[in-house]
């Protein structure tokens, strides 16, 4: 199921009007302005050639989109899948519609159809990209909406089930565009076969979890009943025709067979009217809204997320996606500033510590040297003292000895003097 965006209405004070105010005229104002602006719609048709795509378009819009002058792509033989667009301007009841039909000739026609959906995807993406760029310009002017609003996928009326190509295509595109599967050339199926076929297809669609376009529920019960009826008829089996045939006096569009006329606009013959009413008369605006609010937003958020995260970190939390890329950068900047501050603080810390260490070492070594110096000094002083002591001892000894010597000398001198005297006195014998 395609998720539609929720409209959240906060609780706000209610006030009752006591008289005429006039804003009930707002819808008329909106009506007026929209008519003045005109409308645009882009419809894409995809399917193998020969399924009656061009005819159906002509039948839907009651015009010769593809005519002799502007031949449809089916008239031209394609070797590879092309994507071609034709733009027409149609007016009705004062309302102007710029209709773009995107055709995909060559789809599914090759022998090897791998990747034949790629040009289609590329086209859809490129239109979204154009819109994204236009929307993101600094100078925005009126932005033409060329995005694909609806993709009609034609299923061949085999009566059995979906082909692998069908499944593959729808699986790849259901996230990018509103896919409406149609059973083409339904006049080859009887009503019972058609019913079975439809059931089978829906079963397979559900099995493969393919999200086809869902009609929104309205608040009106009557409308809801109708919608449920339509849902039961999905996928719609259509028949297209450009030829007007007279049946019972009435001119109708149909296909003439020997056994009768398959009327295009007869609800019992095929679901064409249902398709036309739904596609054009009731849900055209909703298709555009879903494209804008769901598919385009999907594309945009994916694109911008890739830009912001540079595709590196896939673990970003959802919370980060609610910011604009710029706000994200701002936050990253703030984070970085904090990181830098922390880093700075850390580095500062380490620096201080190292400096302290070194200084301490220096101090220690200074203290050590001081100590050694002191020791040596003291050593030296001790030695000095020792020397002094020695000298003093020596000096004392010397003095004593010299004193002694002098006494001895004196004695000797006295003795010799006495002897001399005695000699002189003749005591010499």
């Amino acid at each position, binding site marked *: 199921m395609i998720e539609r*965006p929720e409209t959240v209405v906060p609780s706000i004070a209610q006030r009752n009007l006591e008289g005429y105010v006039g*804003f009930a005229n707002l819808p008329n104002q909106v009506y007026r302005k929209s008519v003045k602006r005109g409308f645009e719609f882009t419809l894409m048709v995809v399917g193998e050639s020969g399924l009656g795509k061009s005819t159906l378009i002509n039948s839907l819009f009651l015009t010769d989109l593809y005519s002799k002058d502007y031949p449809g792509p089916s008239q031209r033989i394609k070797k590879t899948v092309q994507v071609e667009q034709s733009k027409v301007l149609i007016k009705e009841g004062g309302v102007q519609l710029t209709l773009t039909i995107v055709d995909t000739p060559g789809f599914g026609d090759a022998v090897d159809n791998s990747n034949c959906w790629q040009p289609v995807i590329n086209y859809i993406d490129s239109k979204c990209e154009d819109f994204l760029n236009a929307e993101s310009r600094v100078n925005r002017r009126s932005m033409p909406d060329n995005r694909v609003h609806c993709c009609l996928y034609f299923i061949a009326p085999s009566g059995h089930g979906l082909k692998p190509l069908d499944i593959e295509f729808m699986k790849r595109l259901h996230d990018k565009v509103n896919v409406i599967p149609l059973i083409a050339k339904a006049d080859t199926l009887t009503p019972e076969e058609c019913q079975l076929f439809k059931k089978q297809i829906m079963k397979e669609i559900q099995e493969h979890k393919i999200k086809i376009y869902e009609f929104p529920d309205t608040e009106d019960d009557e409308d809801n009943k109708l919608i449920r009826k339509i849902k039961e008829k999905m996928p719609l089996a259509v028949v297209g025709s450009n030829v007007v045939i007279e049946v019972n006096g009435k001119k109708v569009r149909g296909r003439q067979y020997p056994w009768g006329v398959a009327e295009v606009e007869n609800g019992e013959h095929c679901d064409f009217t249902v398709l036309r009413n739904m596609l054009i008369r009731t849900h055209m*605006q909703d298709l555009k809204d879903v494209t804008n609010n769901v598919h385009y937003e999907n594309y945009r958020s994916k694109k911008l997320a890739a830009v912001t995260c540079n595709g590196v970190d896939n673990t970003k939390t959802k919370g980060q996606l609610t910011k604009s890329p*710029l706000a994200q950068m701002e936050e990253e900047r703030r984070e970085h500033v904090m990181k830098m501050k922390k880093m700075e603080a850390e580095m500062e810390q380490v620096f201080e510590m190292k400096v302290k260490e070194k200084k301490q070492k220096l101090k220690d070594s200074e203290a050590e040297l001081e100590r050694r110096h002191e020791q040596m000094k003291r050593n*030296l002083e001790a030695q000095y003292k020792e020397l002094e002591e020695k000298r003093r001892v020596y000096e004392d000894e010397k003095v004593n000895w010299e004193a002694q010597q002098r006494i001895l000398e004196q004695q000797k001198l006295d003795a010799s003097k006495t002897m001399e005297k005695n000699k002189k006195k003749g005591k010499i014998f």
Partner: protein
Amino acid sequence: MASTEIARQAGEGARAVPLAGHVGFDSMPDQLVNKSVNHGFCFNILCVGETGLGKSTLMDTLFNTKFEGEPTQHNQPGVTLKSNTYELQESNVRLKLTVVNTVGFGDQINKEDSYKSIVEFIDAQFEAYLQEELKIKRTLHSYHDTRIHACLYFIAPTGHSLKSLDLVTMKKLDSKVNIIPIVAKSDAISKSELAKFKIKITSELVSNGVQIYQFPTDDESVAEINSTMNSHLPFAVVGSTEEVKIGNKMVKARQYPWGTVQVENENHCDFVKLREMLIRVNMEDLREQTHTRHYELYRRCKLEEMGFKDTDPDSKPFSLQETYEAKRNEFMGELQKKEEEMRQMFVQRVKEKEAELKEAEKELHEKFDRLKKLHQDEKKKLEDKKKSLDDELNMFKQKKTAAELLQNQAQQAGGSTTLKRDKERKN
């Protein structure tokens, strides 16, 4: 349908083709309208005017209901904006109406900054929308639009001219919001004075280059009425929520001793014109103008401020991805540069500190080398002294030994002499 429109569209590569029957897309406007009605509408009005000019009363009268609020006093220190949101419903149309009132406007002695809070408020609403629009995962569809769609500027009914505060404020606001000037409490002015007053106001606005909101005249269905109304600007209004019986009807009016001023009487005041223009005819246009003109201008200025451009120097258009990537690279580069710078700074500091410490170490070593040398010298001196002492000691020893030897000899000799003497004596 203007033929120019068709030509323009056809010129875009679309060829006009005739239809062979009724296709049914003429229901598109209805589809669109239905969706809008289901979604609900929203409208935001800003009332700017001095205290006491009847702003709240006029809102009540316009929307036929009682909004919040008590009359404010004149003693507000600055201008603040109070906004209230209400849900109204008329027939099947739901309207989320936000009324923003300027509280304290014109009450201060110095009114130079009065307009600032108003401009900030308006910008803040634009900013909120812009942020939402720029988000990666956004919900514009259900976003409650708070941008101001219309600004009713209340002019005091002096009868002379606009006050300079009015001119200054309106000039600041005219590029940001649709301004609809109204003469408030116009039951204080007589008809002839009013005519002159209106002319004076309009000419002052024109001469000062103030762009007020003009009702659009490009849509044929409303062009006529709009252009007529444009000539009646500014609307002179009277507001009242009280009802007075006139004839056999209860009408909103103000009762004076000399008569009753009926609010909805077009001869008495322009209230009905205001209501018609503001709500019934041009509400959607006011919203559109706000979005396509005022908001776009704000957005453009803001993005340019942030450095976004539409084309690179070679005039090739930038894709969004390129722009964002470029910005991101620039941003990352900046961050890296900052990191580098810080690292460099630290490396530098480390180097410097290392050099410092090395110096200190060197000095220390030098000091100790010097001390060592000193010590060496001292030691040498000591050694020398020791040596000299030792020499002296040796000499002394020698002397002593020599002397002793002599003494011994002398003693011996003396001893023998003495012996001899003694012997001789004995003999």
